[in-house]
């Protein structure tokens, strides 16, 4: 459904991503792994328009989306989370969800000013959707809570929820369990599988090998911005280049 083609990103001198190509297939969980600084987050930023690529293209269902802005790309059905949990932390949980659902509605200035019938029905629909998603996240009872009162795991869940509430076709998760303990990680992993089973394709960046091996359908391994391997978890486990990269050996040796 989404293809990355020969993507390259230069940060004045530093090549963070180099000639990277891979596909995300409908209905799968694709994991992107690699050592620190391998360029994983940069790939997400290039896919979602946060950064402009130096060269290369991104396609979704054959449509070229390279160069679109983040708010345009989410409307193509690609939603994302950030590596450091990013929320609207001055607002309540429900407000976070409503904001993320807004682009699907026509709740603009005039409809809001006159409380038109369209405003009423869409407002209700947005609220219903937000509550349903909160229920799915297991945060229904926190709807009116302010963000700082949530636990770290709840905040991570909500961050995923913000991406999910607009019903994307593809969900990009950047280390959704970073900083969580084993037990919390397992709960989030189960949750991500549930998201996929509901029909959302998932692409996930992770460091936790055990979790990834048990969850991903396919894995893409990056090192120094380049793809060094791609395959099923079993193939990756036994891949020589991957083992060397993770043991700190020189890949090209």
């Amino acid at each position, binding site marked *: 459904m989404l293809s990355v083609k020969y993507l390259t990103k230069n940060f004045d001198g530093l090549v963070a991503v180099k000639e990277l190509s891979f596909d995300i297939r409908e209905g799968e969980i694709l994991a992107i792994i690699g050592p620190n600084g391998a360029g994983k987050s940069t790939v997400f930023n290039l896919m979602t328009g946060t950064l402009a690529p130096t060269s290369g293209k991104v396609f979704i269902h054959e449509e070229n989306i390279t160069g679109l802005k983040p708010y345009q790309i989410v409307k193509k059905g690609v*939603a*994302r989370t*950030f590596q450091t949990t990013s*929320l*609207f932390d*001055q607002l309540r949980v429900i407000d976070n969800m409503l*904001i993320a659902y*807004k682009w699907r509605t026509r*709740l603009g200035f005039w409809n809001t*000013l006159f409380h038109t019938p369209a405003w009423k029905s869409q407002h209700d629909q947005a609220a219903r959707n937000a509550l349903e998603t909160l229920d799915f996240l297991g945060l229904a009872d926190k709807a009116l809570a302010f963000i700082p009162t949530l636990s770290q795991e709840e905040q991570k869940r909500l961050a995923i929820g913000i991406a999910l509430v607009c019903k994307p076709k593809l969900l990009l998760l950047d280390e959704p369990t970073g900083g969580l303990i084993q037990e919390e990680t397992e709960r989030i992993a189960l949750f991500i599988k549930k998201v996929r089973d509901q029909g959302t394709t998932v692409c996930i960046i992770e460091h936790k090998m055990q979790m990834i091996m048990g969850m991903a359908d396919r894995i893409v391994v990056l090192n120094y911005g380049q793809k060094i391997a791609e395959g099923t978890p079993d193939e990756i486990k036994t891949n020589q280049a991957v083992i060397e990269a993770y043991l700190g050996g020189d890949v090209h040796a």
Partner: protein
Amino acid sequence: MITKPLHTKLLYGFILLAALLLPLYVPDPYMFQVVIMSLIFAIAVLAMNLIIGFTGQASLAHAAFFGFGAYGVAIMTKAGISFWLALPAAASISALIGLIIGPPALRTRGSYFAIVTLAFGVIVWIVAGNWVQVTGGHNGIFGIPRPTPIPIPFIGAIEFFDQPAQYYLVLVFLLLTLFIMHRIVYSIFGLTFMAVRNNEPLADAVGINTFTTKLISFVIANFFAGLAGGLYAAIIGAVSPSVAAHLLTFNFLIFLILGGMASLAGPVVGAFAIPILMELLQDLGHFRMLFFGVLLVATIIYFPRGFVGAVRQLNDKIAARRQAKS
């Protein structure tokens, strides 16, 4: 979306009643004039609150847009156009100018946006003082007609020559502004403004065109700044470059900060209480400024959400203590 508790509703009802009856107990015409001015300023500060408090964009050109409204009404009504046409027209012109300077100004962020808008404000002030044929230069424009009387069948007409009529006229516009701001702020549309203020990259990532959102907020704010300016011109009957000066912007800003940002009550409290306090402290002379300076610094440090924010904090604390007891 948030329903206010009963005692808050009662308080608002009481304030509305007190406002409606004000002409009965206001001590003297001078104080009455201060109150009328406060209500006009409250409209302008509510508008400033939308762009600064809710959207997080420090526009310091606010008085310039107040000035567009004031000069707009002054010029149009002196040319014989009805006040009731001139006022919305002047507010719309103010909004339109916002729509034109917004796109280049909003390319900048944070303090750069503040500087760019401040510079624009200063330019407008200079032009107002020098474009003699249109603005009357430093002397300004005198003899602006009072709001056109509203004819009422059989009874006669509502005229706006005395203070009570002017007061009710301004009060109606303040309530209208509050009503519209309330609709905006307590809606999903309004939440997008706060989203931009709170976390712009995330807002962008969840499908909000942050640039357009800021521009809409800026234009709405400038419409109401212009509206307030237009009312000012017709009530005072004269305008001079000082109505477009950055000094006035900073007055609005002080009302906003002391009253309370990002709340609807804050701007009204600030615009109302501070001029009145100023009058009451008349005896202190220039030492008043020292007093307000200290108050301002203390507020920014200890109560960043101003008076209304502090009251809310207190309210929440009491509620929490009650909950803990039961």
